[in-house]
């Protein structure tokens, strides 16, 4: 069996489940398939709830910034409001435009949803709490998060709507552009950790907070800031939310979607936000490292702090224009991150670090 390395803390439960499944007498390849499907389903459940929770959180945060209440009706401060919303959206009728491209239109939200969840294979939620510690973890995450833009393009194209098409094109340009500074800022960390594996990167930041890469690298703060900026753009959050800029493109790529298809885009956006925050925590903020409290708690705490930062961005800043966005990426972020990367690599080579 491949997986038991991970999940040290939840070992008894998994052992029990493993025994249950293996007692059925399934031959080995099928046994792994069943187990991984089960793990995937668990992850899916956790993340779906998490995304719903984030939606609620965003609504509360925005409400409090604007001195409103936000959802208050369902439960204490409306805590299950978004669950009810999701149920409502599930029941809603799908309104499809007659001129859509059926295949592309249908699969776009599915792709978006799947792509958003794929990244969680290699995100360490805690010590040993990882689905699979791939030795190319960072590369894998970079690959699958970029997958999202295909779905946005598909949505833009399949809707047969000019606003949607503009939104899809914008998102393609944006995500491709911001991928470059994002990778370049991450590479500094990889260079210093000497590994692409997420677990190894976290282990390289063991100890107190001054061991985190954000404080330890020569240009850690710069790498972190550029990563956050690029990640905001990747997650289509407000200073960079031009693909769905509602004042210009009404709703951008998802203008023709309704009901559950829209909900899938919507939830995927929040899952993406959590993804980029989790990556930021893993790479720069020491991952699960922390004292006294369990590792997964530290991880979630830090991740939610980054999410809060992203939410504050959204409710404070205006939106950039599409060409200014590109200019910012190519003329400012890319040179900065590459200079940072080269400097970092040279320092690593020269041994000037601690």
């Amino acid at each position: 069996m491949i997986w038991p390395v991970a999940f040290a803390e939840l070992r008894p439960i998994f052992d029990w489940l493993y025994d249950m499944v293996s007692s059925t007498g399934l031959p080995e390849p099928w046994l792994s398939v069943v187990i991984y499907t089960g793990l995937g389903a668990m992850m899916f459940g956790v993340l779906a709830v998490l995304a719903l929770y984030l939606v609620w959180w965003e609504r509360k945060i925005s409400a409090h910034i604007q001195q409103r209440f936000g959802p208050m009706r369902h439960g204490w401060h409306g805590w299950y409001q978004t669950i009810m919303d999701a149920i409502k959206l599930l029941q809603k009728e799908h309104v499809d435009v007659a001129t859509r491209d059926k295949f592309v239109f249908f699969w776009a939200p599915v792709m978006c949803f799947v792509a958003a969840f794929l990244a969680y294979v290699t995100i360490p939620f805690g010590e040993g709490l990882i689905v699979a510690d791939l030795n190319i973890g960072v590369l894998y995450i970079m690959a699958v998060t970029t997958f999202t833009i295909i779905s946005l393009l598909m949505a833009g194209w399949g809707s047969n709507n000019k606003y949607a098409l503009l939104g899809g094109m914008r998102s393609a340009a944006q995500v491709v552009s911001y991928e470059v500074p994002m990778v370049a800022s991450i590479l500094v960390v990889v260079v210093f950790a000497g590994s692409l594996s997420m677990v190894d990167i976290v282990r390289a930041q063991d100890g107190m907070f001054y061991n985190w890469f954000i404080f330890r690298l020569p240009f850690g703060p710069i790498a972190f800031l550029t990563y956050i900026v690029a990640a905001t753009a990747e997650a289509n959050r407000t200073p960079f939310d031009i693909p769905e800029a509602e004042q210009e493109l009404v709703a951008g790529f998802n203008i023709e979607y309704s009901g559950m298809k829209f909900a899938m885009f919507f939830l995927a956006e929040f899952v993406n936000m959590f993804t980029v925050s989790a990556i930021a925590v893993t790479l720069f903020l020491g991952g699960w490292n922390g004292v006294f409290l369990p590792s997964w708690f530290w991880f979630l705490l830090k991740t939610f702090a980054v999410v809060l930062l992203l939410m504050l961005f959204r409710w404070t800043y205006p939106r950039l224009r599409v060409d200014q966005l590109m200019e910012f990426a190519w003329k400012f972020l890319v040179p900065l991150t590459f200079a940072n990367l080269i400097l970092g690599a040279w320092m690593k080579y020269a041994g000037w670090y601690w």
Partner: protein
Amino acid sequence: MDIVKDIKNLLAGMGITGKHLGRHAITIQYPEEKWTMPERSRGIVVLLSDKKTGELNCTGCELCMRACPTGAIMVHAPRDEKKKRHLKAFTIDFSLCCFCGLCEDACNFCALKMAPMYEFSTDDKESLTWDMKTLQEIGRDVDYVDTRKKKKPVKKTEAAKPAGKPADKSADKPPDKSAEPALPEAKPATEDEPTTDQPSGNETKEGEQ
């Protein structure tokens, strides 16, 4: 440096939103809590009743009906043989009403008032036409100041009364004029008014200076 200044300004913006994050909400949860409406608030038009007798103050003079810019008020008060009006029907179509308050200003008999009530939404447009009974019921507990003149209804002197009065209490009263076929014998008040009304008879008589 430019970048430093920009980052400083960006952080200042976040500081302002962050500062508000901890403050208490200024909105209220509407159906549970409600504003206390100011007393002048113009909501539903209600018919007022006499505090002692409990009868409607309305005399059916139709001034409000003429003042209404949308034609929302319908008053039916035919005269009997002694030229006395009998209020038979008084309906307000709230789907037409624009809540301008001109009817309230036009009324000389404290017969109607715009009460600070606003919850009368419905899903049926027909049910927005309220009749006299309903308006009276709602107006029962509406407080008002009785400013009615206790003058004897002498025919010709009363005619001049409403014309001179509104300026004192600064109410704007735009009743219609005389040439109304639907109202054969208008009350002396409205009959006389147009004739006494000079085209430029609007000088401020008691305005200072």
